[in-house]
């Protein structure tokens, strides 16, 4: 198992290092803007999947109100860690109540 883990880690690292080995002169303004957009796109996709998807199905469970509360708190400029804990508290409480 340890060997498998090491091989898999090297495989993941290959992507990470690749981004740093591409010569700077290849990075045009278009590619630079693309990599900025990729950040927004991937992050948004992660949030959406983590909020609405469970095992290949769309599911509206305790995560949805929790993320709604998080969005309101971020809009109100509440500190990051407070918002994250609030989201956990909302989802955890709703589940404890049987939702």
């Amino acid at each position: 198992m340890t060997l498998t883990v090491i091989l898999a880690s090297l495989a993941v690292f290959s992507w990470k290092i690749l981004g740093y080995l591409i010569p700077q002169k290849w990075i045009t303004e278009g590619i630079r803007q693309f990599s900025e957009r990729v950040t927004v796109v991937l992050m948004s996709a992660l949030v959406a999947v983590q909020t609405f998807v469970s095992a290949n199905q769309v599911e509206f469970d305790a995560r949805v109100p929790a993320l709604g509360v998080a969005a309101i708190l971020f809009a109100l400029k509440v500190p990051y860690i407070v918002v994250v804990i609030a989201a956990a508290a909302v989802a955890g409480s709703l589940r404890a109540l049987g939702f």
Partner: protein
Amino acid sequence: MKRVLSTSISVGLATGLYGISFGALAAVAGLDLLSIMLLSILMFSGGSQFAFIGVIAAGGAPISAITSSWLLGVRNGFYAMRLNNVLAPRGFLKLVAAQLSIDESNGVSAAQDDFKSQRVGFWATGIAVFVFWNLATLLGALAGDFLGSAETWGLDAAAAAAFLGLVWPKLKDNKTLALAASVVAVVGSLFLPAGVPVLLTVLIALVPRRSK
């Protein structure tokens, strides 16, 4: 600068919450403590790590576990491309920067306005997440049974909220992009294996922005 550092620490702590569930799930999947810790230290990429233990827990072959984590790690390559432009690290620092190039470090960096804060944001968040993620993995692996499931504590919602907070400053100028990515990822999840729909959204980023 103080604000950037406090964000970095917060992101590290929030990631730590989720790291506990990683450690616990990995232990349940039957991995020994050394393998669990090596995943968090060497692989150090949440999505890939969860995919790895998911395949192992389902009784998959080692090569499937390796391939899954490799494919899910591709987004770090996109982040690295952006970060190389910001950091331009040399020599050994290039290897360290590469290892720390993940959702959170790139997210905090991209959320900053000036170049210096973007650099500080990357390094501070990368180090904070590395420390808290590994401590949390250890805690989860040792005490997972005692803590119960991640869902009970709302940690799945915490992880989603943590990512929402990272992308939040960018949403104002990129509403259409973010909405399109969310829709594609959710709809894609109905048909495609886990992890693929999120990667698919990279295609959306290929559409050039209309000039204002």
